[in-house]
């Protein structure tokens, strides 16, 4: 099949998959469209605050949020930008990880996703979407807070995908705790293990298997640059993420491996309803942004694709933001 025919076939498959998935929920979302291009008013494209007060136990499910986040399930259309690639994404069940997983698959990559066992219902949906895009999906549930699991995770991803050349360290622990006096040792440790240690263990295990042209992506945050007072533990890990991206880029550049980060502003994900934000913040989430609303994970998918694809070959050691007009970078 020549390149043009293959791209057309892929597009058809993606649109077919998107049409098959078109649901009443998706139809309510202003942002859903199964065709690329055009433009929409970014202010009204997605839900604005006020949102209903809501709370779920950690880690929370996207499928139980009101409104449901848009991960690009029905709107992302690929065009072969990641043909033949093999990706491992932590936190691939919901949020930006899910949006990246769907986009990567629609762009032609095989995708392994890691998530917590409690997130299985969300993860099932992602696995199904990856398969509907005609790609291989590998589900690797488990808690990344131990070196042993992380080593095993990489080994399983390599075996399941038959190789690895995109690594997205995205899973995070975020809890809003206004006073340091209330931050327990256990909570601090949990945050560090998930957000700093796990990327270290995973990247260290993966690097020997990444050939030149491979890409590593870390999810940072606007919190890295201007942290909120109630995110003391979480925010410093995002500053660390922003920093490790830059030092690893220097270290791995000579090996032909690119390392970049994504810094979102306020994004509508299960983190926010399971303790990552207070109820007060949740009901007016995104009201602080010039666009007047929080972002949806789907609005960041293209960034992850960009940082992973060969076309982005000179981008390394960089942080790409999407903050609705607020924050850095």
């Amino acid at each position, binding site marked *: 099949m020549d390149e043009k025919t293959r791209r057309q076939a892929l597009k058809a498959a993606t649109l077919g998959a998107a049409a098959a998935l078109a649901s009443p929920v998706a139809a309510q979302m202003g942002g859903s469209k199964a065709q690329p291009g055009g433009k929409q008013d970014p*202010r009204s494209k997605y839900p604005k*605050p*006020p949102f209903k*007060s809501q709370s779920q136990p950690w880690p929370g499910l996207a499928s139980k949020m009101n409104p449901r986040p848009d991960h690009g399930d029905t709107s992302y259309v690929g065009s072969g930008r990641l043909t033949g690639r093999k990706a491992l994404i932590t936190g691939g069940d919901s949020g930006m990880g899910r949006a990246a997983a769907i986009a990567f698959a629609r762009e032609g990559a095989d995708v392994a996703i890691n998530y917590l066992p409690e997130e299985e219902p969300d993860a099932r949906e992602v696995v199904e979407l990856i398969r509907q895009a005609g790609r291989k999906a590998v589900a690797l549930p488990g808690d990344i807070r131990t070196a042993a699991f992380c080593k095993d995770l990489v080994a399983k991803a390599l075996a399941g995908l038959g190789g690895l050349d995109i690594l997205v360290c995205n899973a995070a622990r975020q809890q*809003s705790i*206004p006073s340091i006096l209330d931050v327990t040792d256990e909570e601090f440790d949990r945050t560090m293990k998930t957000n700093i240690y796990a990327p270290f263990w995973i990247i260290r295990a993966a690097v020997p298997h990444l050939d030149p042209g491979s890409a590593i992506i870390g999810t940072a945050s606007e919190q890295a640059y201007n942290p*909120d*007072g*109630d*995110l003391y533990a979480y925010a410093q890990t995002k500053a660390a993420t922003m920093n490790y991206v830059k030092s690893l880029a220097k270290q791995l550049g000579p090996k032909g491996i690119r390392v970049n980060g994504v810094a979102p502003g306020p994004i509508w994900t299960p983190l926010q309803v399971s303790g990552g*934000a*207070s*109820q*007060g*913040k*949740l*009901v*007016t989430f995104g*009201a*602080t*942004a*010039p666009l*007047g609303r929080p972002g949806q994970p789907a609005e960041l998918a293209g960034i992850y694709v960009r940082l992973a694809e060969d076309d982005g070959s000179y981008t390394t050691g960089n942080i790409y933001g999407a903050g609705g007009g*607020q924050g850095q970078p």
Partner: protein
Amino acid sequence: MRLPLRVLTAGGAALALVAPAFAQGPGSQRTREFVSASAQSDQFEIDEAVTALAQSENPDVRGFATRMIEDHRKTSQALADAVSRSKLAAPPPGIGGDQSMFLSALQSARGSEFDRLYARQQVLAHHAALVTVEVYAASGDDPNLRAVAADTSALIQSHSAMADQLAAKMEEGQARP
């Protein structure tokens, strides 16, 4: 490549006819800025009050917040009516940059610190709003808006007094052992 003169002239004429997508709109700069500031102020009050109702259990804070939502929905409507009567452009939605920082700080607060912060912010916000509205009421150039400013000024004065009382109560609460 040099374009023939008639093509250049036609192009220039076409440019002159095309209205920019975001023309300033009718009304003096002063009036437009007043409309924008008032709309932002109303939205900010509503956003902060919604945050307070989701976050605070203090009955004084909740009572104040409920009142803010009711009153600022009304002032918001009154402003929109005046804007429409004067055939001015509707202000863009949302809050201003400084207000964004206030709201962001409030969103991160909890417990009694939340209550104190909300009250302090409300004192500041109402003092600022009062100045804006009194200045326009005295010397603004649009009669419909000047009338709205005069009405709102009385309301904001009462809000400001309420905010001062709330803040005093919150500080007093902290002073008690």
